[in-house]
């Protein structure tokens, strides 16, 4: 019986990832607290905790993944790569059209839309669109 061992990164890589994570979370919390005039510590703590997850992922991506993940040399040759490309291209076109239509609508109707809400809608819409397109393409061409 053969066993495979999962590649691990050197301890320094994990230490760097941890320090990076803390630095990003603390910085994000401090900036958020500074940007709001009241309740500095509460705001800073909430933002630092909320940023922790993405910061851990980013730290792992930058410092650890290079040691533990072996890139597939033939990834571009797979049909899945082509599907992702088509799904993302389609989602981008949808995003441009939807943004243009929404801009026209807000201009004509003189609507004021909060920027944060718009960015969230764009981000979520583009992601969901790409996933749905991939699902449709892969099902249709399987």
């Amino acid at each position, binding site marked *: 019986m053969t066993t495979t061992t999962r590649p691990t990164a050197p301890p320094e890589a994990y230490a760097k990832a941890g320090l990076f994570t803390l630095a990003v979370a603390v910085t994000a919390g401090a900036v958020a607290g500074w940007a709001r005039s009241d309740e500095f510590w509460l705001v800073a703590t909430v933002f630092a905790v909320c940023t922790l997850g993405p910061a851990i992922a980013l730290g792992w991506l930058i410092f650890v993944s290079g040691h533990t993940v072996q890139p597939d*040399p*033939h990834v571009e040759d797979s049909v*899945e790569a*082509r599907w992702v490309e088509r799904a993302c291209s389609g989602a981008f076109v949808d995003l441009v059209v939807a943004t243009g239509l929404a801009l026209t609508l807000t201009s004509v109707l003189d609507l004021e839309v909060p920027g944060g809400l718009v960015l969230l809608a764009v981000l979520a819409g583009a992601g969901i669109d790409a996933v749905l397109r991939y699902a449709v393409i892969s099902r249709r061409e399987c």
Partner: protein
Amino acid sequence: MDNDLADRRAQLGWSQARLAEELGVSRQTVISIERGRFDPSLPLAFRIAATFGCAIEELFRPEGA
């Protein structure tokens, strides 16, 4: 493009998973090529031809040719 990849694979007694492993691609990629729904890249076409010991033009033909 049309191809006779499935016949050549069957002659070797290989499964789609085995061929995918030999080519370094996913099994779905082999399935899609065999069904003519995915035209492989030139590097992949060369690897397929080398795997079966033939020229690319012996494996792949324009549709309806």
